[in-house]
């Protein structure tokens, strides 16, 4: 096998290296790299600003011309965030909301995704279309009725308005699950049926284990959503000790509006972003896949 592929690869390799030095191509690549590097540098400026500010003293922040690199990094700004605000509590609260939300989304969305992908029933296409159209509905249209509903059942200032609706699935994630389930060969399903599996077992023991990438994608997207969400915490939560990170940062911001303690605020913001950035680098491939599936399908 290996000996056979060898000769096939060599001619292809030689043709590319034997090409005469192409001046036009060289300049084109020079421009390309130049543009890509400068673009990347521009995009990184805000991050640099965040890190450098978080390590400055207050006078260093309030000077012109600006201080590009702090004279001596004030690492103390980071622990100070935890002393000045219940930041650890905020982080924990965000974790609780995100975990509940992710579990709910996975359960609700995978069930519906399976129904839409693998079972035939009257009105399926219409219902799936209906499901997709809900993606267009701005949250603003339903936010007042939601608030009234959750007040009526006494769920205000609890995490239930975040977690319970998640169990009913989310249109976008239903779509992702459906796409993934549709790609699983029918034969697997038929074989399991002949072996006496019922539909739920086929779903839980064959389809779900084969759908780890989409489970991961949905989990990641949901994590970002719940971690960053501001509107719903703003509307549903009242006591400060229940606030997630997003609302905690907002509190910090308004509390400091007079004296602007920028270094500590940047330190806090950076810590709030860190889980998202780390997750991005760990799961970059899944991210891109998730986005690409939707983009190509439409």
């Amino acid at each position, binding site marked *: 096998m290996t000996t056979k592929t060898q000769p096939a690869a060599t001619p292809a390799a030689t043709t590319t290296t034997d090409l005469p030095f192409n001046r036009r191509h060289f300049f084109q690549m020079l421009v390309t790299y130049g543009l890509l590097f400068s*673009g990347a540098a521009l995009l990184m400026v805000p991050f640099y600003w965040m890190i450098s500010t978080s390590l400055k003293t207050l006078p260093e922040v309030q000077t012109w011309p600006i201080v590009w690199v702090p004279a001596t990094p004030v690492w103390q700004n980071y622990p100070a965030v935890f002393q000045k605000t219940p930041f650890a509590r905020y982080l924990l609260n965000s974790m609780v909301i995100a975990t509940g939300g992710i579990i709910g989304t996975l359960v609700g969305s995978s069930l*519906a995704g399976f129904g839409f992908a693998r079972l035939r029933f009257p009105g399926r296409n219409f219902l799936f279309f209906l*499901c997709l159209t809900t993606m267009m509905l701005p949250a603003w*249209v*339903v936010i007042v009725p939601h608030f009234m509903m959750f007040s009526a059942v006494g769920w205000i200032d609890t995490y239930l308005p975040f977690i319970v609706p998640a169990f009913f*699935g989310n249109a976008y994630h239903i779509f992702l699950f459906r796409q993934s389930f549709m790609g699983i060969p029918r034969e697997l399903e038929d074989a399991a049926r002949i072996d006496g599996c019922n539909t739920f077992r086929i779903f839980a023991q064959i389809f779900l284990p084969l759908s780890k990438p989409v489970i991961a994608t949905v989990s990641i997207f949901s994590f970002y959503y719940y971690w960053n969400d501001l509107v719903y915490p703003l509307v549903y939560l009242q006591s400060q000790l229940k606030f997630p990170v997003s609302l905690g940062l907002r509190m910090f911001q308004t509390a400091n509006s007079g004296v602007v303690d920028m270094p500590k605020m940047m330190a806090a913001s950076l810590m709030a972003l860190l889980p998202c950035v780390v997750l991005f680098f760990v799961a970059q491939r899944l*991210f891109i896949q998730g986005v690409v599936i939707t983009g190509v399908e*439409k």
Partner: protein
Amino acid sequence: MTVQTTPPKPKSKFLRREAIEGYLFILPWLIGFVIFRFGPMVYSMFLSLTDYAARGAPKFVGLENYIYMFTKDPRFLDSLRSTFQYVVGFLPLNIIIGLAIAMLMNQKVRGMTTFRAVYYLPAVISGVAVAILWQFVFHKQWGILNAILSLFGVKSIGWLVDPKWVMVAFVIMSIWGVGGSMIIYLAGLQSIPTELYEAAAIDGANRFRQFRSVTIPMLTPTIFFVLITGLIAAFQIFENAYIMTGGGPNYATYFFGLNIYFTAFKTLNFAYASALAWILFAIIVALTIMVFGTSRRWVFYAGGGDDA
């Protein structure tokens, strides 16, 4: 094995069972749809036709909220103007810059994965932390943007306090997330069969001609997707404005989302907030339908067209 045609199944019974199971699987979603989507939609439509301020019972007033909105409410005009300004500033740039970066990256660039990650990262992070960061980037006295511009002799700009510049600031900040559309374009570019370019080259098409006659037509479905999703998202901008400007200066960034939020949860005018939300929804739906309507003329489906 599967070569033989499937034997006639006990059709009706099997299908009915499959249908029942199908409904059971989508039941959670269906219940959620009724409780959290359809029901609230109907109710908020009803609220928009009432006088209701979170107390007592809603009193039916017909179209009064809408009439007030279109004839007397200066804040409604602020929302309309600022939201459209933002959408018009952001959407074309998002489409063009995203495509330009994707094209650069698609030239078998070395270290493409690293570039891709760097460009995509700002698009995935969002929320209060990012808004606070940008607030300081845009700071008039001590911000890094004015510091960089001053190197080129530009006088300091009040990005977030000057009504003339604040929308530019919001567009700049949104373009920071252009990696979102770039990633979709990149996938679109990579799915264009190379034979098309080879055929075009044999026909004597130069690079520009190839771009115009192969790349762009093949990419129209992707452009369409970026346009529609960008449109729906841009109209709902809220967080960045809430954190960075609170709708100011002088209501220059009083986007629809802010107006609805403040009306509903600060002044507790639930009825009027619902009416505002419905107008926002109507605008989004109308524009989406318009774009879909024109798509027949410019979106090219390689498969011969989807009759959806």
